[in-house]
């Protein structure tokens, strides 16, 4: 059997294979390492980190909706220091890339975190711009093109590592945001983060989530995510890390054909912890079936 080339270069971050796991769905890898072999995964994007520890939102944090779930975890995490001291060495046991997902209340916080992590043993920094901007009435950084430009350009200057910018889908024109991100020096774009959503308990007439709304993920958002990946790939030349509802091989290959250089599995891990491994094998089978030896020849190979 032909040896397949699965390695893929995300513009300075080389993954052993194009399967990664999405931030917030995998903690710091500890729990899933008891179930699957993390060496088989291209990269792990760790739980969203903040400068200080956070206990996250109170009350109910999750409601399941048709083929999806809405979460309002509120970035519960032990803080960047704890991550550096306790989690990096654990993850380093595995032959997988470490992506540090960073979250700030202010641009200054993002920059501080990027700076601190630049001197630590992580492979990439993923700037999550879906966070609420405290100085702008809590509106997400990622929804305003001007603020996107400002935050990406400043973090780029503070960051000596490979920089991924993770886009919010809750915008009217994702292409403009993507272009700005590229112009300001991002090495790679990941998308999509969760979509704003809510669900109401009609019997007590209250929203299910204590915080009223949250982020929708899972198969329900897949077609939207796919279109956004396609759109973004069509306007930027940096690689795209695609995600949003990917649950099986077919989903993953759709994203790759639409232009994703790698994919992230998120919500699917919850129903099927083997999903990343099954999808990896599925992509290899697909490549053999269609005579691809190098994974890279599949990226964006959409025929119109």
């Amino acid at each position, binding site marked *: 059997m032909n040896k397949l080339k699965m390695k893929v270069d995300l513009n300075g971050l080389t993954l052993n294979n194009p399967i990664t796991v999405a931030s*917030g*769905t*995998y*903690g710091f890898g*500890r*729990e*899933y390492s*008891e*179930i699957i072999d993390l060496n088989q995964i291209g990269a792990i994007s760790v*739980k969203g980190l903040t400068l200080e*520890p956070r*206990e*996250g939102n*109170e*009350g*109910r*944090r*999750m*409601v*399941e909706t048709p*083929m*999806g*779930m809405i*979460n309002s*975890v509120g970035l*519960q995490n032990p803080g960047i220091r704890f991550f550096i001291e306790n989690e990096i060495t654990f993850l380093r046991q595995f032959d997988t890339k470490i992506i540090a997902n960073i979250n700030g209340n202010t641009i200054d916080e993002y920059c501080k975190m990027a700076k601190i992590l630049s001197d630590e043993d992580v492979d990439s920094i993923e700037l999550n711009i879906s966070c609420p901007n405290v100085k702008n009435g809590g509106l997400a950084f990622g929804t305003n093109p001007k603020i996107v430009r400002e935050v990406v350009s400043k973090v780029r200057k503070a960051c000596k590592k490979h920089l991924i910018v993770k886009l919010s889908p809750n915008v009217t024109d994702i292409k403009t945001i993507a272009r700005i991100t590229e112009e300001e020096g991002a090495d790679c774009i990941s998308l999509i983060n969760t979509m704003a959503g809510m669900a109401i308990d009609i019997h007590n007439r209250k929203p299910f989530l204590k915080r009223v709304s949250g982020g929708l993920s*899972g*198969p329900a958002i897949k077609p939207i995510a796919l279109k956004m990946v396609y759109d973004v790939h069509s306007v930027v030349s940096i690689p795209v890390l695609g995600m949003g509802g990917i649950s099986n091989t077919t989903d993953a290959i759709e994203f790759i054909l639409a232009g994703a250089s790698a994919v992230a599995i998120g*919500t699917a*891990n*919850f*129903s099927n*912890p*083997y999903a990343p491994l099954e999808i990896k094998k599925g992509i290899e089978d697909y490549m053999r079936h269609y005579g691809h030896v190098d994974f890279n020849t599949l990226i964006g190979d959409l025929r119109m």
Partner: protein
Amino acid sequence: MKFVGKAKLLKKQIINEENFRFVIKRSDEMGCVYPGQFFNVSASKVGYPMLKRPISVSDVGEDTIEFTIKIIGEGTRAMLDYNEGEAVELMGPLGNGFEYGGYRKILVIGGGIGIAPLKGLINSLKKTEVEIHSVLGYRDAPYLYEDFAANSAICEIVSENDEQYNRGYVTDPVKKMLESEVYDMIYVCGPYPMLKNLTDLFNSKGFRAQLLMEEKMACGIGACLVCTCKTKNGDFGFKHSRMCKDGPMFYSDEVIFDE
């Protein structure tokens, strides 16, 4: 050890309109399964609803595990469609169950479907020398009480609506029992208001109980942080512990209840 895969449904048994029982083939890969632990069980063969449902073990046999399931919504209703002989996809055992070594006299308090995991507990105890007192509360007619009646020195049953039994809530008999008896440990599982009211009672009298708690779950193993239980201590004067991984058993003096 965590098993992730398919296990055969050996027996499906309807208990009453709302509740049914699954007896599942237990595989070696599941390792030891303790009372109070749970499995994340696929609600259907077709993958909808998407997330697995956490279900406690209500008994553990030589090579079987038992689940007792109450039909609550879409997922638990869909589970009823599994046929005997079919494979059920599940993951487990998960979580920290009850601690029960060395106690001589215990009180178990269950409300509704919360009685199921307690049944697993008392059935793993009965061989040893433990005096069991039980208080079981129901909305309507009692079910799942047989093992408690057979193994308890005292077994009190209350029902909100069934006139054959003492009407009311478990808190009434529990109050009386706590006045006249001394227990090495108290075990509780039931709806949130019941856990809260009993905890208030225990706290005011200086007792400590093991509570088996519930929250909506996704990963079931501690990775996604959607299933928190507010507990004492921590950097902020409280801590969001993970129901699935740090629980579902918490001691009553650790938990902070919402109003």
